[in-house]
């Protein structure tokens, strides 16, 4: 139970600030004196937070499903021909900066949520894929032999031995992917997605530091809350399978 205390605290802080920022005008008038527009009002912070989380969650779900199944496929005998190519794509792809992926999605798909989601899925895939390959490849062959020797079918070995053992590494990959995607989704504001990046971009364009601060604080808190949630999940996973 104590495991989940830290993420719960971060999430509570995030929700509280999303609700309370609009009434903290005195603080922001100190930051940005001489203007009446102290609080970003085009959308509510809750709406932006929800839309931001939605984008990241959808891309993480699709990315995890695709990357883990691809990783499983190329580590089976049937798909082993593709293993070198897939692992090379995963490592070269990660060299391309996420902003560039985001920017290049626009000529292909136009502005809005769609290109953002596309870029998030595409880029988010790679760390998960790499970690799936590392996790499945890092299992001691003797363990697999022992499992086979016990008469387990290959599906049994996959679900009862390989995935639980590789799970922590795969989870770490998902964590990296989500951390990157929270940051990339924020930049997605520049191509028309509605996320917590909106106040920051609007503030930068209009020279209003108060807007920038409001967006930045919420984005930062979202990232920290998500990260501590993953931290707790990783520990719980390790405890459940006593690794």
């Amino acid at each position: 139970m104590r495991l989940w205390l830290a993420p719960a605290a971060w999430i509570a802080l995030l929700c509280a600030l999303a609700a309370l920022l609009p009434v903290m005008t005195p603080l922001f008038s100190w930051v940005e004196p001489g203007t009446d527009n102290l609080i970003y009002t085009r959308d509510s912070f809750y709406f932006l937070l929800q839309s931001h989380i939605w984008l990241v969650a959808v891309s993480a779900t699709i990315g995890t499903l695709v990357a883990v199944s691809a990783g499983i496929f190329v580590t089976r005998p049937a798909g082993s021909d593709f293993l070198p190519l897939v692992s090379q794509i995963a490592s070269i792809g990660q060299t391309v900066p996420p902003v560039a992926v985001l920017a290049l999605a626009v000529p292909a798909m136009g502005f809005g949520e769609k290109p953002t989601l596309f870029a998030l899925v595409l880029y988010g895939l790679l760390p998960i894929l790499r970690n799936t390959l590392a996790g499945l490849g890092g299992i001691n062959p003797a363990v697999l032999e022992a499992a086979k020797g016990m008469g387990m079918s290959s599906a049994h070995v996959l679900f009862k031995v390989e995935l639980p053992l590789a799970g922590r590494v795969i989870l770490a990959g998902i964590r990296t992917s989500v951390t990157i995607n929270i940051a990339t989704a924020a930049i997605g504001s520049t191509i028309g997605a509605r996320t917590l990046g909106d106040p920051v971009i609007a503030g930068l364009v209009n020279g209003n530091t108060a807007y920038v601060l409001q967006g930045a604080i919420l984005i930062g808190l979202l990232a920290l809350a998500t990260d501590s949630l993953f931290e707790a999940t990783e520990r719980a996973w390790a405890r459940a399978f006593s690794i």
Partner: protein
Amino acid sequence: MWLLDLGVVQPNRIVSGTGYGLYAATGWLGAGVVSSLLVAAVVLATKPIHNRFWMLALLLTTALMAQPLLLEVFALRKLPEDSEYARIGIGAGFWCLAFFLALMLLETLGQLKASRRLQLSAVLLIVAGWWFCATREGLSSLSLIREYANRADQFTQALAIHLSLSLGAVAISLVLAFGLALAMVRRERLRRPLLGLVSFMQTIPSLALFGLLIAPLGALSAAFPFLQTLGIRGIGWAPAMLALIAYSLLPIMRNTYVALMEVPEPVVDAGRGMGMSERQIFVQVKLPLALPVIIEGVRITTIQAIGLTAVAALIGAGGFGTFIFQGLGQAAMDLVLLGALPTVFLALAADAILSALKFQGASR
């Protein structure tokens, strides 16, 4: 690939033009050459012919080198001659073809177990081919090249700013991270708080960190006017540099620490037995053994910094990100490409150079 647009004819830089498929764009000759080339590649890849992978590698490299010629043929055939602002854009089909050919080349080089030098020469040949095509008269109507021609000075400036910001940040944080890693090696109890702090900073999204630095730096520069003369303000290079350094610390620091801790004890003992001083052991034994892992940290950091510098254009730091976000603002897609493609290229080049260095460090 035959159905997607190879190229687009645009009446000016903003209006999206009409697309042409491979056949419509380059006629039966161009379409025939591309199709037979792809068929030949597939035949070579599947039939057991002697030396087929060498032939395939040669074929694919040549094809990639000459690929921009397709656009030249397209411009020659379809560009209206009387219109001053008309230009041709690159279509999805062109990129798909390039991607497909590159993927096949990658796989072929892997099958050949090609040496690093061979891989590098293939890449250099292709880059040279594209460079040659880009500087020819025939492609001067390509919108990407027009955007460049309008901004040649700004482009050079953006390159200089991008490189100095990202490489400067990596250099500074290399010094800092090395010192911090040494401190962690000496004092074990520093490890948790230092690594915790640095990975905490890595978790904060770039846009948020840039945004959070604006207010304090702005206040500082307002309070101390001499900082303004140095160019330190809430926006511009100062917050960008600070954030880049903060992001660069973790990979180098973690890798240096791990590498120094993992030098095998017997090796160090052997050094002591030979009468080396602690300093000699560090410089002549530990550091060379740790070097490849440290360079790997620098590689990760440099790639990351090149990408983040593009984001820093949002807070007015300059660099290729300026073109990206200007282009997005004006819906001028080729301006976006003019910013995004060099950023990708810089990251890939940094990756290649530092991987080669790491490889050399490891083989010594």
